[in-house]
């Protein structure tokens, strides 16, 4: 690289523009290229619920933040070093995210009179021209004009030319960070394979953006961020939803079962349905049901028939499935219920992230209806958590809640993927023959895990009936006997508690085994807590971090960990849910720390809070 290149350890870029500007695609491309280059990274796509929100307005702004570095990266960054804005609304909505003295790259055409009005700037005010941005490094580029100049004579219409302008910006950013265009060129060739003229136009614009950096001298300083020193191995880039889908496929394969997904489209879970639909050659069947209830009921039917059955949804859909989850608990059949949480209640914030369905998962059913609940902590971890949810469901014959959220679903990170040989076998033990002569088949008999047999239709001599009415112990016959009901309620609770015998102990993520403060997290807050606790430890504070995957039942040693610190802080993207369970279960004065804004915690927010307690 040239002499004027700055060597940095990390950078955070926020791409922002109209939801029709191709911002998510630009972000994804930059992410893939950066991952392949070898940086560690974390991303945060943030977009409106409307497919095409009113153009140019603040409501229509779509953003994609990526933090990447030569050091380990656990969050998409609190504030960004560079803000790339395609229009005035994108600047207005995101300027507060930019670090003091940060870089703004602005598409000047997005700051014409109309765009300024739509972004609600005062009449006659243009932030690019009035000096209000002088504390930042502002680079104005007329992307639209340059794109038009690039594709003049290409024969494409104005609209089609305009659609390639995100490639110009991407090319320019690639130039700044000295990145190869190859990944994106391959992507363009595949995506538009049927339209060679569009392939050519996009590649031409991408290269024009790159060359603009070289020739224009608008940007004096390029930045070099070397590959990260992370654990050796083979990596890929991964988002949470595809990771979840792969975890389900892997579990089915390891169990020797067919995978069945019953699902109904809902944001932000639909991508799991899309992904699984592509993998029919793995024996994966997907059923897009008429509604959320049918989706889970079809899964229950498939489970009764001996498939690994899964239903995927988000909060409002889960609410609809509630009665059927209760049925699955009574039937004691394997079932995985995936909730990719979003902001609630009701329709809430469909495209924003939240962790507010934890109590729904743990308690939200009629009657005493316990089931295991496990949560993923990062996009790559969705794979392992989904796999583990399947293992527990199959081996313990129970519905299991797997909690992900919008941030994990759409966020990306480099992932050192496992080899299939490293994954544990799952033992379904489906009964394939009738009991010996003279012995009666007991549909609700119990094994050492207190699980009942999985007897699927087709096996002679195992004909039996199951249902939602209370069961007599062992025979499974309908029973209204008072003693039996209490016994069965306790048995159903005990067998879920027993799952704790078959999971690993809770571990500390970092920090001392005893001290002033334990930060106890769950789910997608992992990266932010890890970053904050690391900073606090570096500054000499007495703080540790534990992140729970198994929320019901808890690992058996969790209590002793909690009691090893003066204070326990539970940060959550809700109004305090895990903290209630912790207090209830262990009678300790755990303190909650809430953020309920539809966006993840920043490490800085957490660090400030940690310092008040550690």
């Amino acid at each position: 690289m040239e002499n004027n290149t700055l060597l940095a350890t990390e950078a955070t870029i926020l791409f922002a523009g109209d939801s029709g500007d191709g911002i998510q695609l630009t972000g994804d491309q930059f992410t893939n290229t950066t991952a392949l280059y070898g940086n560690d990274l974390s991303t945060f796509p943030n977009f409106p619920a409307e497919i095409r929100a009113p153009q140019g307005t603040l409501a229509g702004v779509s953003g994609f933040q990526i933090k990447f570095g030569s050091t380990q990266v656990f969050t998409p960054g609190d504030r960004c070093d560079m803000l790339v804005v395609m229009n005035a609304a994108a600047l207005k909505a995101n300027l507060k995210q930019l670090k003091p003295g940060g870089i703004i790259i602005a598409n000047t055409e997005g700051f014409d009179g109309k765009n300024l009005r739509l972004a609600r700037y005062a009449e006659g005010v243009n932030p690019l021209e009035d000096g209000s941005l002088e504390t930042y490094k502002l680079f104005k580029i007329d992307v639209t004009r340059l794109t038009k100049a690039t594709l003049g004579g290409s024969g494409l219409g104005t609209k089609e030319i305009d659609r390639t302008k995100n490639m110009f910006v991407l090319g320019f950013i690639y130039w700044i960070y000295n990145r190869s265009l190859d990944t994106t060129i391959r992507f363009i060739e595949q995506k538009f394979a049927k339209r060679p003229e569009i392939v050519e136009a996009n590649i031409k614009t991408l290269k024009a953006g790159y060359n603009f950096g070289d020739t224009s001298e608008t940007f004096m300083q390029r930045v070099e961020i070397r590959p990260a020193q992370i654990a050796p191995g083979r990596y890929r880039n991964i988002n949470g939803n595809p990771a979840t889908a792969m975890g389900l496929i892997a579990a089915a394969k390891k169990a020797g079962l067919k995978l069945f997904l019953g699902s109904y489209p809902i944001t932000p879970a639909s991508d799991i349905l899309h992904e699984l639909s592509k993998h029919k050659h793995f024996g994966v069947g997907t059923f897009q049901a008429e509604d959320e209830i049918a989706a889970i009921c079809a899964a229950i039917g498939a489970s009764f028939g001996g498939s690994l059955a899964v239903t995927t949804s988000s909060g409002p859909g889960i609410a609809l499935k509630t009665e059927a989850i209760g049925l699955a608990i009574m039937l004691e059949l394997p079932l995985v219920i995936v909730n990719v949480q979003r902001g609630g209640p009701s329709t809430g914030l469909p495209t924003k992230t939240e962790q507010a369905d934890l109590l729904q998962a743990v308690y939200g059913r009629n009657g005493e209806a316990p089931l295991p609940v496990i949560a993923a902590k990062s996009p790559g971890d969705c794979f392992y958590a989904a796999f583990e949810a399947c293992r527990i469901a199959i081996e313990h014959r129970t519905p299991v809640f797997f909690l992900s959220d919008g941030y994990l679903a759409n966020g990306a990170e480099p992932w050192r993927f496992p080899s299939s040989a490293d994954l544990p076998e799952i033992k379904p033990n489906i009964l394939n023959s009738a009991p010996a002569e003279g012995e009666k088949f007991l549909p609700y008999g119990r094994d050492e895990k207190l699980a009942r047999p999985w007897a699927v239709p087709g096996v002679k001599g195992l004909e039996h009936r199951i249902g939602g009415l209370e069961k007599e112990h062992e025979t499974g016959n309908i029973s209204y006997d008072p003693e039996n009901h209490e016994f069965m309620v306790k048995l159903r609770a005990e067998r879920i508690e027993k799952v704790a015998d078959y999971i690993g102990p809770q571990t500390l993520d970092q920090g001392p085994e005893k001290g002033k403060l334990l930060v106890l997290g769950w789910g997608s807050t992992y990266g932010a807590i890890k970053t904050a606790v690391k900073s606090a430890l570096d500054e000499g504070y007495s703080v540790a971090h534990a992140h729970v995957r198994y929320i019901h039942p808890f690992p058996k040693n969790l209590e002793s960990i909690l009691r090893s610190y003066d204070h326990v802080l539970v940060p959550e993207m809700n109004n305090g849910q895990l903290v209630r369970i912790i207090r209830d279960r262990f009678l300790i004065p755990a303190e909650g720390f809430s953020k309920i804004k539809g966006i993840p915690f920043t490490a800085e927010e957490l660090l400030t809070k940690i310092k008040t307690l550690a």
Partner: protein
Amino acid sequence: METAEKTVTPFTSKELVTDQEVRWCPGCGDYSILKQVQTVVPELGLNREEIVFISGIGCSSRFPYYMETYGMHSIHGRATAIASGLKATRPELSVWIVTGDGDSLSIGGNHFIHLLRRNFDVNVLLFNNEIYGLTKGQYSPTSEKGKITKSTPMGSVDHPFNPLAVVMGADGTFVARAMDRDPIHLRTILKRAHQHKGTSLIEIYQNCNVFNDGAFEVFTEKSSKADETLFAEHGQPLVFGAAKDKGLILDGFQPKVVSLSEVSANDLWIHDERDRTKADMLVRMFDDPSREGHFPRPFGIFYVEDRFTYEEAYQHQLTEALARKGEGDLDALLSGNNTWVVE
């Protein structure tokens, strides 16, 4: 489980009886239906272990507990959805859904229509008693307007469903009506339902002698049955009446009751269960029997259509994907197309 060549172990009706005490009210029409099903099922060439009865909630939904086959008594309205998942993944099973007018047409209405349009190869026995029995006597979606029940002391203001018109509207491929009090006819229809490849829907008029006694009396009692009902048989003229002296003709697009003393039997409407237009007319003969000039209520198989089943298409895609791409390689899936190595 699927085997190359199926061997069938015959079983008797008695072997279909479970050790559970049947708990319907004495005199309930459900007893007769259970008896007919237990009589017909052993004659279908099936193994007992490949039969599954799935129900929702309601009096009729206790049915699976009384059948010594595989069975599931599920939740209200969802038997159809549960059966869909089972049949999609285990197409070789013989799946029977037992449901009622409340279960299938009220709380489970959505799954009911989608089951029909997808045309899973299952048999649906819709016990219609025009009342909520298990919850002790509220009006149902098939109760007539003005019905006085516990929840409608001044009479129901709901216009009722014509169940078979709903079935035709949802593109059902086997549309039939039977009654609890005509066991021979019911058994014939049950057999045909099993033979049909696709969703076989039988609406069975079933008397609830506790909360809605006599709802179908006019169709079932000897004194009125012959004049008030019309038993349609494929290829036969539509004739009814105690003396078989009345028939139906089509006057343009209008069905008309005629006396056989005036019209020759050769000119009558010949029932063709493959004729969708005529089937639509038959299921629309849904008059209140007290109305002057009403049509008789038709029974029988009104419509049969051969259409691909959901599970065939679903399984075909799985086979096709396997043939095209080979068995999925988990390691290739995990690594994806873009990887890099950190030393």
